């Protein structure tokens, strides 16, 4: 593999195995472990490969412990992988070359990098010095970030006096002062209220659009991923289950669509005919008052809808994909073997 310039990030067969100490509960076991520590190897990332093109925004989906954060940490140079090859912007991340570090940033929703006791603006100033941002540019960028994120009131407060949402806004601003070309965002909106989540999300969208930055994002909030990412990577137990667009994920993993039909209240009674019209009793989820809810195989959707429209007095029809969270659940339930069998990107 060579760092072909048309990919911003290349990952080949990345593996990272942690060695963790392990012991039974209780004092006796604790004493034994003093003498001889038993360890166990935990594969956090078990051989994943993918490419990210410059300017792409890719969402990383997976349950807790799937290996998302570990992958991001390898990509940002914090961790040495157990095996595999990785390049980001043509650099090997864990060699931590200055040229690479200056062009990337890592934002973690659960950690803060701003110094706790001093005003935000002093932390920014520290970053200015570390990244050697020229004074004029620095002033301009701070001004812009302050306007976009409405930080004016916050800059002079010590970080410990900020609310979680305010702190996150400052974290994001501080991490983008050096105008990075690659963003690694690890649950940037965790714990924030819906409004603040949207603010952060919109800001990230704005930043990436303006700078063309390549972005890898993990989040447990599907709203983040739906709003920002055209492409998603689904990983589970350290393995890549899916790589493709969000819509494709739904088609692949959810073989059903939901049809909701509202009947005209004045229309004729339909009770006896319903099952025949639907096609299979299994597809009928509920029939209450004037509303029918069906769960129909994808391939049958059109036929069933046409049949119902032709034979019933219909007030309204909704055909929808299942909620994305539900699909994600299905993906994880399917497991790696199943997913790989289907794999044909």
């Amino acid at each position, binding site marked *: 593999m060579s760092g072909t310039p048309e990919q911003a990030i290349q990952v080949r067969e990345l593996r990272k195995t*942690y060695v963790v100490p392990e012991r039974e509960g209780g004092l006796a076991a604790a004493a034994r472990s003093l003498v001889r520590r038993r360890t166990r190897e935990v594969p956090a990332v078990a051989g994943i490969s993918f490419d990210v093109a410059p300017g792409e925004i890719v969402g990383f989906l997976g349950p807790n412990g799937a290996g998302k954060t570990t992958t991001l940490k390898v990509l940002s140079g*914090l961790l040495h992988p157990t095996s595999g090859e990785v390049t980001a912007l043509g650099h090997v991340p864990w060699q931590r070359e200055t040229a690479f570090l200056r062009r990337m940033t890592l934002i973690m929703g659960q950690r803060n990098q701003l110094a706790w006791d001093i005003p935000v603006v002093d932390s920014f100033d520290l970053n200015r010095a570390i990244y050697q941002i020229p004074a004029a540019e620095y002033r301009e960028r701070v001004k812009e970030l302050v306007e976009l994120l409405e930080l004016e009131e916050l800059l002079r407060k010590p970080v410990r006096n900020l609310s979680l949402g305010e702190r996150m806004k400052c974290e994001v601003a501080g991490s983008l002062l050096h105008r990075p070309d690659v963003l690694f965002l690890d649950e940037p909106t965790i714990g924030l209220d819906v409004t603040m989540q949207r603010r952060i999300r919109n800001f990230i969208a704005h930043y990436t659009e303006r700078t063309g930055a390549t972005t890898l994002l993990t989040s447990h909030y599907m709203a983040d991923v739906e709003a920002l990412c055209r492409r998603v990577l689904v990983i589970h137990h350290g393995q890549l289950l899916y790589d493709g667009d969000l819509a494709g994920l739904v088609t692949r993993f959810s073989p059903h669509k939901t049809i909701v039909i509202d009947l005209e209240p004045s229309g004729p009674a339909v009770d006896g005919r319903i099952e025949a019209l639907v096609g299979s009793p299994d597809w009928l989820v509920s029939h209450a008052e004037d509303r029918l809810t069906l769960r129909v195989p994808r391939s049958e959707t059109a036929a069933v809808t046409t049949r119902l429209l032709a034979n019933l007095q219909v007030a309204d029809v909704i055909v929808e994909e299942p909620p994305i969270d539900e699909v994600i659940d299905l993906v994880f339930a399917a497991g790696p073997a199943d997913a790989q069998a289907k794999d044909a990107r």
Partner: protein
Amino acid sequence: MLWLSFRLGALNAIQYRADFMVQLFQSLIGLGIALGGIAVVFSQTDQLGGWRQEELIALIGVFMLVGGLIAVVIRPSMEQLMEGVRLGTLDFTLTKPADAQVLVSVKRVEIWRLVEVVLGAALIVLAMVQLGERVSLERVAAFAVTMLAGVAIVYSFLLILSTLAFWLVRLENILVIFHSMYEAGRWPVGIYPPWLRATLTFVVPVAFAITVPVEALVGRLEPATLVGSLLLAVAFLIASRWFWRLGLRHYTGASA
């Protein structure tokens, strides 16, 4: 970088002005006890293991000066480093485009501890005045060189200890051990029994940071010791850097 750290440390410290008074009080008491100890010894005798009173005052001065330097930046930064390894907050230091070793080494500054540095320096000047014409330019130069080497050795030693955190994760007490060994440096290592002298020279190299520079100042330093001190400093700096890099490879962060 160090300057920035000092600036931030100052900003931090100024919020807690009472600390300054406490620190000043504490340092003065420490100074009083040290000088009192010397006074007691020299009321019985006029030399201790070949050392005279003004020489021992210089020794206390160096003890406070080097101890102050450690307390101002090295020790707090090393504590921060170990905490960073345990809690995973080191992550952000490692993503910065600057030498990570430099960043962690000046990460935290406790500015009020400069009091000790100032008092130590004052004592050294006082001792130099008492020593009078025995102090020559060469000796002052040798003193400066050996003290720099000594500080480099102590710094490297502490960095190596702290770097162990990458494997052992939790070992805050390790710096306390160093601290108590350092306390032994307030007397010339020559007065201790051989085993302790050897320990203070080669295991916990306090001797190079305190006794050796004072020997240089009062003109009893052998050239071999000067060269040895410099070579040891270089060796320690290289070894600690190598060990630090090895430690970084083992960094796993706290999983989140």
